[in-house]
């Protein structure tokens, strides 16, 4: 009798599994995307079709008017493209000084949301921006809820950032503004590249006091390369951000060390990471420390995956090559010039 129950249980289980496998399209959301799963958007004018990597499609008959941006990156990008009236929600980190470059940019009436399905639905959006690192549960619900969703998944280089800006500009019907942002970004990158070209490339180490550095194929690596430096950890560490042993970091003997500046102790007169590193006895014989070439760049410029990232690159370039000129700007009076904003803690 018991054997029969067991067999019944096993058969039923097999049946269910077979059903799920056969009717996979129903359960398509069980599988999270891997690789590039950025949402595809049809070319041409509205109505536009959005195709998610899971195969789900949405049609936007007109440019979206109730946009929710659930990631910090899209908060930043949208800030340059779309008027605030069209945005109903932004990510809750947007006002955190340690993470955001646009603190208090969005009106307080715009909801700060977690990537949490109930609060998103309650805002009745017609378009939601999420990213590969958003809470997958909420994304799954969203994909099922018939609200148009744009998923972004590539954040590894300026090319990725530019593609993302283009995609967002396209779907929000702000192509002209988008192109302006992209042009300026490309111009500023080219400007730096051209300026640093004649100079000898210094050996640069990015170091975080928690013991992290960056290998190849990462934004930070790209930033060092654009700024006319060599990332000493490039072929030593695997791609992306990785832990580096103190010993290894010292043995790389960098000429310049770039760190990320803490925001939280700016106004508390506490030690900056640069001071802490300089006071470490073990680092005393590193050329960068000996020659006093340890710099901190505001973490918000280094972490952002939006157009604001160029500020970080300009800052690093100015540290690596103090001789170069800052990017000339038409509206210098209104905007801070990035290369003067470098935090030099020497």
């Amino acid at each position, binding site marked *: 009798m018991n054997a029969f129950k067991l067999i019944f249980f096993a058969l039923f289980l097999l049946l269910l599994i077979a059903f799920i496998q056969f009717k996979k399209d129903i359960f398509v959301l069980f599988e999270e995307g891997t690789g590039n799963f950025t949402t595809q958007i049809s070319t041409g004018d509205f109505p536009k079709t959005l195709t998610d990597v899971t195969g789900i499609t949405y049609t936007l008959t007109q440019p979206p008017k109730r946009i929710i941006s659930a990631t910090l990156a899209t908060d930043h990008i949208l800030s340059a493209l779309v008027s605030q009236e069209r945005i109903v929600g932004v990510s809750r980190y947007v006002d955190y000084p*340690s993470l955001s470059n646009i603190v208090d940019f969005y009106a307080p009436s715009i909801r700060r949301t977690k990537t949490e399905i109930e609060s998103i639905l309650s805002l009745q959006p017609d378009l939601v921006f999420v990213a590969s690192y958003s809470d997958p549960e909420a994304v799954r619900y969203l994909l099922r809820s018939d609200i148009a969703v744009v998923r972004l998944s590539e954040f590894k280089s300026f090319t990725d950032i530019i593609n993302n800006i283009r995609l967002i500009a396209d779907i929000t019907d702000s192509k002209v503004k988008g192109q302006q942002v992209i042009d300026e970004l490309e111009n500023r990158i080219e400007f730096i590249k051209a300026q640093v070209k004649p100079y000898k490339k210094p050996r640069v180490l990015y170091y975080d*006091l928690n013991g992290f550095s960056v290998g190849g194929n990462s934004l930070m690596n790209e930033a060092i390369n654009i700024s006319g430096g060599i990332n000493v950890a490039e072929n030593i560490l695997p791609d992306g951000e990785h832990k580096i042993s103190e010993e*290894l970091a*010292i043995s790389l003997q960098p000429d310049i060390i770039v760190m*990320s500046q803490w925001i939280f102790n700016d106004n*508390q007169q*506490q030690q900056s990471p640069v001071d802490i590193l300089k006071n470490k*006895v073990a680092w*005393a014989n590193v050329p960068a420390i000996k020659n006093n070439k340890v710099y901190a760049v505001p*973490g918000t410029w280094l972490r952002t995956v939006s157009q604001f990232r160029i500020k970080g690159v300009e800052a690093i370039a100015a540290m690596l090559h103090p001789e170069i000129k800052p990017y000339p700007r038409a509206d210098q009076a209104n905007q801070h010039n990035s290369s003067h904003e470098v935090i030099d803690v020497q």
Partner: protein
Amino acid sequence: MFNNPTHKILIIGLLAILFITLSGLAVLQGPVDIPFNTILTILSEAILGTHHDTIIAWQQSIIIDVRLPRVLIAMFAGASLALCGLITQSMFRNPLASPSILGVSSGASLGAVIAIYCGASLLSAWSIPLFAFIGAGITLSIVYRIATNQGQSNIATLLLSGVAISALNVAATSLLLALSLNNWDVARMIIYWTMGGLDGRTWDHVFIILPIICSGFICLLFYSKPLDLLLLGEQHALSVGVDVKKTRRNLLIISTAMVGASVSVVGGIGFIGLVVPHILRLILGPSHRYLLPASLLGGAIALMSADLFTSVFFKNSEIPLGVITAALGAPFFLFLLIKQRVVIN
């Protein structure tokens, strides 16, 4: 198990030799390859004060200011974790008792996380150990208060309240982490601190842990007989003249200080406190005269070899040290348990 005292001393001698070899190896081996001769020259300069022109400055700083403190911290932290495990197991007559089960480790972690959260960790290197000690002490006194009635402590209540307070500590740590998320830099610092490990440890850390562990160990030597007696049960111990209440209190204070110190320096490395004393007890028998020095050496050996293992086989990987100690310790522990079970049956 070895019954002959000569054999036991021989085993402790072997442990000592292993200990010295490992500490030598740990200084020679690291993520960066530095030739053997260079290391010897650097060490001889540091110890004998002779001057050599051949020394490259940055290699010297790696050996003297990175590797040496790292090795010393592995030694002291491992030793203190193993000793605390030994004491709690004997005191509570329970092979499962360990600083982590009694909530002491999580209390120390909570204290340290509070120090980071408040920014105190940036003011002085001593703030994390101090907060860790306070956290461990408060936790232990609460657990002990709850479980002790009329000077008698019920082991089951003690362990259960330890587990409960431990859960509370972990919850409080998570809460702080969640609160700190509005400041990304602090959150990162807390996350990496809780992962533990030996990276970035300096001579400051050595001087924090050194006095506590050394004085703790010397104090514990005085308790080797009372610990034997407590192992037989508190009625036996009291009958032969051990002031059980006072002894327990003193032992708890010493082990809290040691756990606080080691947690504040290496973070949560849990398995050593449970496994090392147990293995040594299986080998050497229950007498603390042998177990105390053996645990000191054994704990140091365990943590140093785990660190060495990581640096040799997983160069530049991000595997936390605690994972290695658990992965190596657990199977060995189970093997011994099964073997022992067969003998008994």
